[in-house]
């Protein structure tokens, strides 16, 4: 056994020394679950934003042109609709391969086949509810596949309650009020989400307001950033106006 890799007593005493707080730009966990309501687009939006954030870190090493597999089961399509190409971020727009699975076991098969494929940048899955087939064993299979082949998986769980799972990071995401745009303060602005990391292997739990601050993902503490006083976005314009 390699003694140097074992944690030291000081690290065990203070968890933060070994497990830093999560922030955007850290290399993403390979298997994240995102719990969201099917009444809003926050789950898919946060999954795409986290996936883009993860791909940005790998950008130097890996080509950007790899495809993205988006798997949905029939119930998820019925509740939340399909991805719409004109609304996707510019960088992923032409790379989506969509799989419409009939039921949960087909969707799990598609997810696992996707994780084994070296030509995919990442796999995004959407499962509705708590299907019986998706138990701890199934999630453990996904973990093993993603860790063997290194393809990240972002699994959106619509209207599900968190059961036992082998996911490395588990998020609970709801929509958050967006920062008003400068030129039309009555219009909805860039997307924002209230994200709660409630279970993670490498990071302590926490809450953030995630903001898709194209091209990067911004995270703020919800206590500091109350929605009413949020600065308008569209960064450079705001700074120029001194708002």
């Amino acid at each position, binding site marked *: 056994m390699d003694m140097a890799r074992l944690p030291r007593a000081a690290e065990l005493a203070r968890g933060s020394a070994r497990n830093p707080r999560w922030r955007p730009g850290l290399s993403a966990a390979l298997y994240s679950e995102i719990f969201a309501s099917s*009444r*809003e*687009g*926050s789950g*898919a*939006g*946060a999954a*795409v*934003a986290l996936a883009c954030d993860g791909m940005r870190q790998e950008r130097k090493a890996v080509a950007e042109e790899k*495809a993205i*597999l988006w798997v949905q089961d029939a119930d998820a*399509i*019925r509740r*939340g*609709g*399909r*991805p*719409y*190409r*004109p*609304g*996707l971020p510019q960088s992923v727009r*032409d790379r*989506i*391969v*969509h*799989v*419409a*699975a*009939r039921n949960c076991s*087909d969707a799990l*098969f*598609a997810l696992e*086949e*996707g994780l*084994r*494929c*070296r*030509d*995919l940048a990442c796999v995004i899955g959407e499962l509705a509810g708590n299907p019986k087939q998706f138990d701890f064993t199934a999630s453990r299979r996904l973990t093993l596949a993603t860790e063997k*082949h290194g*393809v990240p998986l972002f699994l959106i769980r619509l209207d599900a309650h968190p059961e036992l799972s082998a996911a490395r990071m588990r998020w609970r995401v*709801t*929509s*958050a*009020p*967006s920062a*008003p745009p400068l030129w*039309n303060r*009555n*219009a*909805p602005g860039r*997307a*924002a989400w*209230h994200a709660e990391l409630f279970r993670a292997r490498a990071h302590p739990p926490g809450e953030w307001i995630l903001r*898709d601050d194209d091209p990067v993902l911004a995270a703020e503490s919800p206590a500091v950033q109350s*929605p009413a006083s949020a600065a308008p976005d569209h960064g450079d314009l705001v700074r120029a106006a001194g708002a």
Partner: protein
Amino acid sequence: MAIWCAQLALDRWRHSHNCKPGEGPDAQPFALITETAHGPRIAAPNAAAQLEGASCGMMVADARTLCPALQTSPGDPAGDLAFLERFAIWVQRWGPWSALDAPDGVLVDVSAVAHLFGGERRLLSDVAGRCHARGLTVHTAIAPTAGAAWALAHYGQGAAILGSDDDMAMRLADLPVAALRLDDDVLLVLRRLGLKRLGDLAGIGQGEGEGRNGRDAIKRRFRNHRSPGANPLVRMDQLIGLVPEPLLPVVPVHAPLVQRRLLEPVRHRSLLDTVVDDLAADMVRELEARGSGARRLELALWRVDGEVVMRQLELAAATRDASHITRLFTSRLDDVDAGFGIEMVRLRAAWCEELTLAQSDIEAAAQEHGTSLAACVDRLSVRLGEDAVQRPTLRASHVPERAQSWQRPLDPEPALQHELAFHTRPLKLLDRAEKIAVLYASPDGDPRQFRWRGKVHDIARVEGPERIAPEWWRERGAARLRDYYRIEDGSGRRYWIYREGLADDGRGGMPDWFVQGLCA
């Protein structure tokens, strides 16, 4: 040599009804028809119908007044063309290569071939005899140029032969100008100019004085007509042989095919798997020799009682990997009923694409380094179905649900004008827009509150309306326009909703509201 099947469509119809000319159903007045913008027209009347007065191009209603007993049936131009392609291969028995002369003829190169059949006269009688045995009415001619052979076959008498030492201009002088294969409007111009015979056109430049300028005048008249079919002078030169006329030869393509006849009929799955393994290996060798890969494979199983079970497989990219083929077929063979046994198995690659030699141990590599995208798509579409694995593409339409279409994942994207980025679109679009109940201050104003799937949302911020008009060239006249609003409710949920129509547009009652998309 030109072969003109004068009644190709009718001959095929007679063949399908198994009757000789003038017998059975062909004894009654009958015509094949085509649908045109102005109603059905006669494409090919038979002899009895022609006697009664029906002619080609006549409206069916007019023909019925002349001949009330006229029977009709729709023509099959696509089938005729497919027949003609097979016919063009068949006529290569008389020459090394042949070319299609759509819609109802073929051209065969018989240079230095006639002596094999005992002279040109006997060659033509051989053609006539064999075509007659197939039930085809043909007119044939042999001439030094394709144009001359075509002219003689269509407008000459009998089986005309034009030798290379005959005076071509003189032999062809009596034929009408239609023998030049010209377009209808050019024929009309020539008729108005009084040029009716080929001799008129050929002799026009040979006179003295004024007559010498005739050819220049015609050249000026047709100076902008570049295509041979629109320029009588080019056609005339091709007919005489002064200008070359390239023809596109027909080349038969044989699909790779391997089969196994089994000594003992197979009734068990494991034996069948072994046979499919062997066939896949044979097929891979066959494909490797051609330097191609299979895109579509057909496996046919002949049972002892004569039934044939077909299993078809379509692949996302050309492949030449035996274990991949076997693996894909394995899941397709689960529901095969072997009956009393299978005695022959045949594998055919109906669609091949070029594939150069490459590393072949794709399965071993898959264990180590993961599968390729094509293999992944194949596995998914075999289990989930062809329509389950798709890629979204853009379509030129303003209506949101039509602006996105789906295609197979590895097909190239269609070329399209770049999408306009004036307006933000939602991240996800519902398959069907869902109806909502909306509270608003005024019918044309911003929405204030809506109820969707049983819950009430207070609208905090609104952007809109973005007006999208219906596509009048496609939809009914009563289709209503849509006013789209991008909204955010009090807790930050963002939606894309629209109002269908205006209160006073006169196309129905009060407009309904729908939610169509979920924004990120």
